[in-house]
């Protein structure tokens, strides 16, 4: 792979020429058949707004604006720099609707509407939901929020204490609020909702607390629950019915959500839905992944632990499951499968197929058929020594026996570590290059397991973890992945773990942030760094791009280090204990010296002519 990257950068002018040629002939050339394109129904033409964190239902995080390009990006300057008033991890994506920007802060989840027509973007309105303070104690990995969603004049967002709230986007008045989670059981909500087909889709967090995971659809008008699908338990709770046709025999059978667990364990078995949801409007199916089974100690839950660490396809109207694929049956290392699914149409074995591409937490890049759930390919995009591969005949991950956690023992050098080869921070897909831009991490871990005790509202983990840099010594990697050729196009090594999302634009730029506060713009084709700027705090947010009321293109991002990776700074943890923050502190002991806790919104633009 390194050879590929090297080859690319050496032959840069050639490559550029080739790419340019490909763009020119894109509609007709045979070459275009060899490239992936986003599912058309899920990625409508760009209107210059940014109404959901993933940009569109296909989750491309791609802006078709091209004012800022490879030539002028070096002139990019901050035009807005405002404090959010909070100093914990800012993972949210700003939204832009018309001439207003909406941001959600970490706990206490205040929402601000900023007027983009005025200089400095003054606050139009602010909404304070006042969630319960005790929710902070059951949020596993910092008290983050991953953003709001806009639809039909309303802003929808979740609060840490388990509520979904709808606001009038114009006035900031509350329209409805629905309490969905119970913090006394350890349930929180950190994910960004997805609004589709008149429903608000929300899932819970708390896989480290033995909660039972679910995804629910609320009526966008009233906030009433339309359906609720659990990730464990009997088929009727999981909304598995006659329409359920999983591709692989391992996922077929009655009540597997009960049978694949020791008695009663499914009730506290995790499978939370705290990540990203994609939606195919043509098939009317939603796609989302389920989190880790609880506890982390795998010996306490023999069996495949359905339906955790897998991906569900559901009918959006009824919530009935269509298929399921379990990427890590009987998960051993907290490899939640909640990462984003990018909906693409691309050639597989000579035929263009509707697929979803998922950079899995277990280190494999999955290409899965959107209709059937068949896995076309699963290739490692990071360093993996805990699994030998994925058996495409059975769909099963092939674990490495020596790396299996054993109670009372410490298993060393497990790669990837608990946050996987990539955690929640979403990738971006550019139809212009056909590449998927994956910000991810390169961490390994030592893991010692012991009997976990279940007490409602307290952690249910049963593992001591200590993470450190994987092979090469770098902790972050930015990978451009070619899903058709199933290989890396280029790779950028980052010293610190990458915990921010990526943004691709039609100016052939890709933006991402680092935990020591650099916002970077790279060439989408070659990976060459073109521009960077140091922000007040580490970046773990999701950069977005929009057309402002003045017609100019802007880049916006929140800066505020935190999250699981940055808790050492945002929560002031003690670096002397390697197991702090579930072992992440050991990997980032140098972070307090390299950034500080802050919370700011930045907007960048080219200078006016």
């Amino acid at each position, binding site marked *: 792979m390194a050879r590929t990257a090297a080859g690319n950068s050496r032959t840069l002018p050639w490559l550029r020429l080739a790419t340019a040629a490909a763009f020119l002939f894109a509609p007709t050339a045979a070459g275009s058949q060899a490239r992936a394109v986003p599912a058309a129904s899920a990625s409508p033409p760009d209107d210059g707004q940014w109404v959901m964190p993933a940009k569109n239902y296909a989750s491309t995080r791609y802006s078709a604006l091209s004012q800022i390009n490879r030539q002028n990006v070096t002139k990019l300057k901050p035009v807005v720099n405002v404090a959010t008033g909070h100093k914990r991890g800012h993972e949210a994506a700003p939204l832009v609707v018309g001439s207003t920007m909406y941001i959600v802060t970490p706990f206490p989840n205040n929402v601000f509407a900023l007027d983009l027509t005025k200089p400095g973007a003054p606050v139009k309105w602010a909404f304070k939901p006042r969630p319960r303070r005790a929710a902070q104690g059951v949020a596993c990995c910092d008290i983050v929020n991953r953003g709001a969603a806009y639809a039909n004049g309303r802003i929808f967002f979740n609060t840490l204490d388990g509520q979904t709230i709808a606001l009038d986007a114009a006035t900031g008045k509350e329209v409805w609020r629905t309490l969905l989670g119970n913090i006394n059981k350890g349930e929180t909500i950190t994910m960004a909702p997805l609004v589709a087909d008149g429903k608000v889709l929300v899932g819970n967090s708390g896989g480290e607390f*033995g909660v039972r995971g679910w995804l629910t659809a609320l009526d966008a008008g009233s906030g009433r629950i339309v359906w609720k699908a659990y990730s464990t338990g009997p088929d009727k709770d999981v909304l598995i019915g006659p329409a359920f046709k999983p591709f692989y025999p391992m996922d077929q059978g009655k009540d597997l959500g*009960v*049978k*694949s*667990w*020791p*008695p*009663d364990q499914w*009730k*506290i078995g995790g499978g939370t839905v705290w990540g990203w949801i994609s939606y195919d409007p043509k098939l009317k199916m939603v796609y989302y992944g389920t989190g880790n089974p609880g506890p982390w100690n795998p010996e*306490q*839950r*023999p*069996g*495949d632990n359905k339906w955790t660490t897998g991906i569900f396809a559901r009918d959006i109207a009824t919530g009935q499951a269509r298929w399921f694929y379990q990427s890590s049956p009987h998960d051993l290392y907290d490899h939640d499968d909640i990462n984003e699914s990018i909906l693409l149409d691309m050639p597989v074995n000579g035929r263009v197929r509707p697929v979803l591409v998922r950079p899995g937490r277990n280190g494999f890049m999955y290409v899965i058929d959107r209709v059937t759930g068949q896995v076309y390919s699963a290739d490692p995009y990071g360093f993996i020594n805990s699994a030998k591969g994925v058996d495409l005949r059975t769909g099963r991950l092939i674990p490495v026996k020596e790396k299996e956690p*054993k*109670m*009372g*023992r410490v298993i060393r050098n497990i790669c990837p570590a608990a946050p996987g080869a990539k955690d929640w921070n979403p990738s971006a897909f550019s139809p212009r290059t056909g590449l998927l831009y994956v910000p991810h991490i390169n961490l390994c871990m030592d893991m010692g397991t*012991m*009997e*976990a*005790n*279940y*007490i*409602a509202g307290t952690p249910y983990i049963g593992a001591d973890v200590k993470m450190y840099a994987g092979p090469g010594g770098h902790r972050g990697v930015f990978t451009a992945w070619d899903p058709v050729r199933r290989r890396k196009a280029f790779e950028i090594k980052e010293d610190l773990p990458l915990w921010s999302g990526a943004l691709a634009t039609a100016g052939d730029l890709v933006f991402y942030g680092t935990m020591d506060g650099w916002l970077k713009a790279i060439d989408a084709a070659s990976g060459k760094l073109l521009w960077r700027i140091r922000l007040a705090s580490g970046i773990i947010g999701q950069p977005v791009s929009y057309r402002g009321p003045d017609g100019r293109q802007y880049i916006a991002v929140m800066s505020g280090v935190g999250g699981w990776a940055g808790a050492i700074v945002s929560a002031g943890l003690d670096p002397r204990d390697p197991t702090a923050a579930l072992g992440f502190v050991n990997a980032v002991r140098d972070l307090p010296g390299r950034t500080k806790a802050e919370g700011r919104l930045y907007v960048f633009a080219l200078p006016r002519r």
Partner: protein
Amino acid sequence: MRRLLPGLAAVALVACEGRQSVTGGDGLHSGQFNSLFLIFLLVTAFFYLLVIAFLVAAVVRRRGRAEDRPEKSGGEGGFRLILIGWVALVALGLTGLTAASYFSDAAAGGARPANAIRIAVTANQWWWDVRYLDPVPANTIRTANELHLPVGVPVHIQLKSNDVIHSFWVPNLAGKQDLIPGRITDITLIPRKEGLYRGQCAEFCGLQHAHMALDVTVEPMETFEAWRRSQLRPAPPPATPLAVTGYNYIMTQECSACHNISGTPASGQVAPDLTHIASRRSIGAGTFPMSRGHLYAWIADPQSAKPGNHMPYVGLEPHELHGVVAYLETLK
């Protein structure tokens, strides 16, 4: 001496009490060990007698002073013959013992039949956590301080320890096997005779080492299967007002932080599973036989019953105690 005799007899007779007896031979391997013991006994007894016979002969022959006897010539050859015979005999005896010991050990350690019932036993200070494994995870059974085994069927037991070194020993059925933190050891049993047996921790593991016993029931296959099915049932809901009081106490107070009762919110994992506690033969890992009175005593003050064990003195009010016992008694 006469007064001491009954006491000595009592000590000796304890070994004959059937439930915990090294000479029971109620399992295939303990039977083999018995045979091995017998072989050792016979061989060593034979040699002992031989040595004694030589000694006696020597004493008899050497009576009198040395200078009184004339120097004998030509005795060298006979002596050599005897010496060679003696060495050969010793070599033969030792080889026999080694072989016998090797083969019984190999039989005990090597056997892991495919049809064996698989059990995982985890030792804690001072109780046994028992899980019956099953290919279908939902059929896993969790119990504590008891083993139910079908007669004649091999049982493969995985042994782990959560704290210090313990040793698993059901003398009637098989030999000892240590449980070592961080390691998995195993032992295979094949019970040959129905009955009630007692297992005992055989490695000193702390204050209550003596009260770390295991009730073993060897029963016909049908009875075992019935027991297994009953163990898979979740706890019934409390029926009487008194039991409801106890249920509420257990669910909301200290008990559920450590104990699990299937079918209820109590999901603690670090103390014995209580789902079927009333069906067990004893409480406190063999400290008391199961009875209402002993349940009262145990819950009211576990620290007088078994000082140093990890169940704390909680100090229940009388009505709470009545309720908790009433509820636990329904957990058959």
